[in-house]
């Protein structure tokens, strides 16, 4: 019995068409089929946020979405948003604040943080903490992550756009 479906997903701007097993998660499709290993698998049950991706502009858990559900949609990963420069400010701030240690949660954390930067430019420190609560980090204790995101928001407020 064939349990695959032809699926076309625009990954970081490039359409990718494959016969995809119906049960395959989007994160496994990206990592195993496309070879984009930047998004990580931390829990496989939607809690830790390490696999956070962007689908049609909204952040989602790559382990809670099937690849076939992304058929015809646009998926952005850490690799794509790094190359486009969209994450550059956050990446610089994370680097300068050491807002990452082992780096395993970092791609997902950056995706969530970028979503906040885009949608809540006025977020307070408390709101930043609340917004990234769905992304676990076991190394940093979060303080530096909040500092880094806060700095990006401040810079955007103060500096020329």
């Amino acid at each position, binding site marked *: 019995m064939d349990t695959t479906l032809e699926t076309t997903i625009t990954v970081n701007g490039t359409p990718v068409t494959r016969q995809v097993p119906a049960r395959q998660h989007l994160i496994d499709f990206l990592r195993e089929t496309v070879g984009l290993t930047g998004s990580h698998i931390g829990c496989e049950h939607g809690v830790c946020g390490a696999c956070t991706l962007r689908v049609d502009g909204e952040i989602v858990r790559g382990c809670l979405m099937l690849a076939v559900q992304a058929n015809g949609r646009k998926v952005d990963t850490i690799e794509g948003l*790094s190359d486009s420069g969209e994450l550059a400010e956050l990446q610089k701030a994370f680097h300068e604040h050491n807002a990452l240690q082992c780096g395993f949660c970092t791609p997902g954390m950056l995706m969530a943080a970028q979503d906040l930067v885009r949608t809540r430019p006025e977020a307070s420190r408390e709101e930043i903490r609340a917004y990234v609560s769905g992304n676990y980090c076991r190394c940093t204790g979060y303080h530096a992550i909040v500092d880094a995101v806060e700095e990006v928001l401040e810079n955007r407020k103060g500096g020329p756009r």
Partner: protein
Amino acid sequence: MNARAELPLHAPGTQTDKGYIGQSVPRPNAKRLLQGRGAFVDDLRFPRLAHVVFFRSPYAHARIRKLDLTKAARQPGVIACFDGRAVAEYCTPWVAVLAHLKGIKSAPQHAIAIERACWQGEAVAAIVAESREQGEDALAHVEAEWEELPVVTDMEDALANRHVIHPDLGDNVCFRRELDTGGVDDAFAKADLVVEETFGFGRHTGVCMETRSILADYNAADHSLTVYHATQAPHMMQDIFSRHLGIPEANVRVICKDVGGSFGIKVHVYPDEMATAAISVMLRRPVKFVADRLESFLTDIHAREHRAKIRIACAKDGRILAFDLDDLTAIGPYSVYPRTSGIEGNQVVNLTGGPYKHREYRAKMHVVFTNKNVTCQYRAVGHPIAAALTEGIVDLAAAKLGLDPAEFRRRNLIADDAYPYTFPSGVKFECLSHHKTLDKLLVLMDYRKLRAEQAALRKRGVYRGIGLAAIIEVTGPSPAFYGVGGARISAQDGATLRLEPTGMVTCIGSVTEQGQGTEGIFAQIAASAVGVTMDKVRVMTGDTGVTPYGGGTWASRGAAIGGEAVLQAGRALRSNILDIAAAILSMDKAELDIVNNEVVNKLTLESKLPLVELGRIAYFRPDTLPPKFQSELTVTRHYTPREYGFSFTNGIHASYLEVDVDTGFVKLLKHWAVDDSGTVINPMLVDEQVRGGVVQGIGAALFEECVYDENGQLLNGTMADYLVPMSGEMPDIVVGHVETPTRQSELGAKGAGEAGTAGAPAAVMNAINDALAPFGARVTVQPFTPERILKALGKV
């Protein structure tokens, strides 16, 4: 420039290398991780890669009556299925004991259980398939019949030996230790105040974001094994794979690329990982095992689970006269290889009462086997237990004497000029700074103002608490930790520095990187010691085929030991470079120095020779150098601390929080930590180590517990059920430093990675109890859940 001329690194003759030491330089090697371009084990791609999954015992203790793998073997994509006996043909069992832990015992443990499983989650069969999905599908076709055996889950039950888990051992006691300075009964008899309390500590675990991962690649042609491993100790694993798989050590290479957090979880030998390596040999192809999150909760080492009674004897002026401790801890069915599971209890005995100047101490400690997952060394090993026991009972004594907790500590902390000092447990302190750290903490947190605020709010029915916790911490251990007990675990580390023809410096170190910043500080030290800018330094770690031999990352040793090796190698390379420069320039070496990538005149700082030109001549035109002159642009140096068994550090934490006395919820408002980890190489990285450690300590204090039922079933083995700290509930954490460099090394650095975890739980506990004081309520069993707090308040 940060002028810190008093530190040993800046001793006479080395003024120019102060460079990057003490500066908050971002980690050069972190950039790839920010773009998702790291290389964790599960990111690697190999031809003919097979995936192994494990069939695990559903019971905590059961005999395997039947295990039929034939149906599983016929499933699509399945390459092979193995039981314990098949794997044992290739991998010998182990017994985790150490000679210096007198009397410690354990049972032989196999890579895959044979005949009997002793905890829920122990692997009893391996299925190898072309994909992980196919392997997992085949698991449903394993046919097993079990005979359930009596389950021992409670520590007291284990100690009572009603059911002995390993009959050959005679009883359930893995290890016991007693210590007595001799005058304890006398001290208690003379005391004005005696206080006693029993504290409980739940089991918790590390929850590394990257689960345990291993990819073993056996090459039958040359009988060699290359293992890509998420481990903290590649050389230790090289030795272990060699001895248990019967492959010459020189044929085993362990490579750690990026490792997604470790915290002590990834420094142990795991049976499923040994099985994976054995299966690679059996199948003569690369085999990968990546634990899923449920397997992680069932099989990553757990830690803590102690119940301890502590008594303190005090004079009415507040002097502590003696401590008396009785600790019981349970470790699961096996002592974990090769470090043993006796160390945490041993540390509790060594460290309890550690910051204080009493002279009488008695301790009794039992380590017992149970049918739960194994426990072993996790970040801060024993320290959070010792700190909570000490600081919990100290606060209680202070309260009974009507003394402020800060003042009570001031009266009892060992004086800053009392060193070297031998503590009643026998451990030796080279030089600590308890009073300096206490003073700094009280200023940082504005203690008096905070107390006034607390009092004012209390009148309005807002219950806030302030908790202090002073600690000592074992860092940078000598061979006294493991080597003396017979474990082949290196206490020394090495670094190789090489000047490249382009003037770049390559630094290859044996300490590994799991995110703590080892490679970053090595770049800082190497650049400073050689005289180059940091952009000229490349650091590599984590490959037994390439790096000098060393211990890796554990016991807060990377900066203290590995850093000193880099410093010594850097100085040697600098000297060798100057030999070449002197030959090229026909000048006296003593007239020359290296600054900013150039050889300069030491007095005038006039540029004499860029290193890129020196490299060109040394490598490509050595014919132009004097006859018989041979340049040496690769140097290796090693370092082992020998003078003291451990580089003890000290610190003090404060927690400020609010307890909702109607719901039992705790809101953390702020946390302060002042630590003395000797020379601070990179203040930002030390701050971040402390902060991360504090949050893991807060997790233990408030949220994290591996909950088992009476049948030995883990009840919360998912990330949704096992709570770890999230950003929204964590406070800002203020970190302060006091620097008392160790005189054992020229760098003067001690460890910093575990200090946060050591002190935070005690500070949080004391703060909660301070908040609850108006109600006469106390909590003593971690984690301090809302339910436990409400019970203490008599509300549920």
